[in-house]
């Protein structure tokens, strides 16, 4: 469904992505793990054209999407939940959700379809319904994450790009978020590219994973195998091993 081939992305002179190649099949959950500054966010931003790659190809459903603007990418069915949620703080919860459907208002499906999706989001995240008139900035971190996901889903993406959804959240809320991701895949067939610091939880849920180091893919494979991989365990699951050792 998504095929990235040899992309290179720069911030000025900083060479952030070096010949990255990644692919996702329809309905897969794929995770990107790596240390801070490895380039995980940059990969998502390269796909969504926020920071377009300088060279390389990105194909979505066999269509070359490199060079398209962010709005065109959203229209094709790729939507990003940015790092740190980035909800529109002064706007109400409902306005945030409707912004997710920004491009659909001009389409032919009509408002009733959007309203139905709005109700679906409230069913998925009942907390958002309770707070629908509240300014998004007044929500808790977990609620803001749910809102950011709901907002992205309002675009009806076929590919969802999630950037560290568990960042700074309590374990119970993380579980809730991960449950929703799995539910999306099983009920809607949504394909998910998941960036996570919480490598263990991400690899447990994902089908496959890529390990990034300083802008390069250093390891890729089936998630369960990556979980068993000695290198991965040492570098990214170290905390868990220490726990075992302490016991």
């Amino acid at each position, binding site marked *: 469904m998504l095929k990235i081939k040899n992309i290179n992305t720069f911030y000025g002179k900083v060479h952030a992505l070096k010949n990255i190649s990644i692919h996702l099949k329809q309905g897969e959950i794929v995770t990107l793990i790596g240390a801070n500054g490895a380039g995980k966010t940059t990969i998502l931003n390269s796909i969504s054209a926020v920071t377009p790659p300088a060279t390389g190809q990105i194909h979505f459903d066999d269509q070359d999407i490199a060079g398209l603007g962010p709005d065109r990418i*959203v229209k094709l069915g790729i939507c990003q939940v940015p790092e740190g949620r980035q909800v529109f703080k*002064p*706007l109400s919860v409902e306005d945030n959700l*409707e912004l997710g459907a920004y491009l659909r208002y001009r389409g032919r499906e009509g408002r009733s379809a959007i309203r139905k999706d709005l109700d679906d989001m409230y069913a998925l995240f009942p907390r958002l319904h309770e707070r629908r008139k509240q300014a998004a900035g007044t929500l808790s971190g977990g609620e803001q994450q749910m809102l950011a996901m709901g907002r992205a889903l309002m675009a009806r993406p076929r590919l969802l790009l999630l950037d560290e959804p568990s960042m700074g959240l309590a374990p119970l809320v993380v579980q809730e978020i991960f449950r929703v991701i799995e539910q999306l895949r099983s009920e809607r067939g949504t394909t998910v590219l998941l960036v996570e610091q919480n490598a263990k939880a991400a690899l447990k849920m994902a089908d496959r994973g890529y390990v990034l180091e300083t802008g390069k893919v250093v390891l890729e494979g089936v998630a369960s195998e990556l979980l068993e991989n000695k290198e991965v365990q040492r570098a990214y699951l170290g905390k868990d091993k220490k726990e075992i050792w302490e016991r």
Partner: protein
Amino acid sequence: MTKSRSFLKHEMVKFILFTILILFLPLAFKGGYLLNVFVFVGIHTLLAVALNLLLGYAGQISLGHAAFFGLGAYASGILTATHGQNPWLAMAVVAAAVGTLAFIIGFPILKLKGHYLAMATLGFGIIVYIAFNEAVELTGGPSGFSGIPNLSLGGVSFDTDFKNYYLIWGMTLVTILLSLNLVNSRIGRGLRAIHDSEVAARVMGVNVRFLKVQIFALSAVISSIAGSLYAHTMTFVSPTSFGFNFSVELVTMVIIGGLGSIYGSFLGAALLTLLPEILRAFQDYDIVVYGLLLIFMTMFMPGGLVRGIPALVGRIVMRSGAGSKADA
């Protein structure tokens, strides 16, 4: 969904009440001097609403909006007085031309942010102001341009304050209604999204660059129409009305009235138009009073009059309510 429908109904009721207020206001003035002042409140409201769309909703500063106002006024004046064109046609053509100009300069200028955008729009305003002064053959230079005809419609000439009041407020009310529609639509949400975070707005599919330029151009079109109306009402224009001071005054109106509130723009425009009349006694020191007012407002009513007054009234009612209970 019932929620948004009741919201629209609420907006409609507010607008109708506001329209009634405006329609009957002249009765209170009995055709006196205040009627003339409120003709200008109408023009200033039009300008403040235009700037508010840009500044209050999209969050983009312009310190050069007096230029669009002036271009509308001068171009309408020149086309009608010098070239004998139909004023209504001239107004429309000029608005389209000013909108196109704003569209073209908007692309490079609106890439800038914050202080840099302020400086660029300021520069544009100064260039246009100098042109008004220096293109003497066309504009009459510093001494001004006179002999602009009044507007007329179906044999009625708009040559009194009374007639002009209804002409200008008619246009202003229509603009307010259209603006309310715009800001409550998906475009309005897109503008507020840009205001809060351009990156997040882009990720949601908002074409940030294009939308900013579009709203800048729309704002310029409304300002140009306000300029045309001003020229035909005054029948005389001179550069001093379109300088940097006036651009700052417009920004002050929008901020004092309330950023991101259409009715706030009316309150800001009314206050800043009435104030000089009240402050006649202070003469040249009125700018000091403006400054103090701006400081006072940002300290005590950061949301502007439109949010500050209801809050104040609420507090007074609460306190007097508590007081009367204590008495009993």
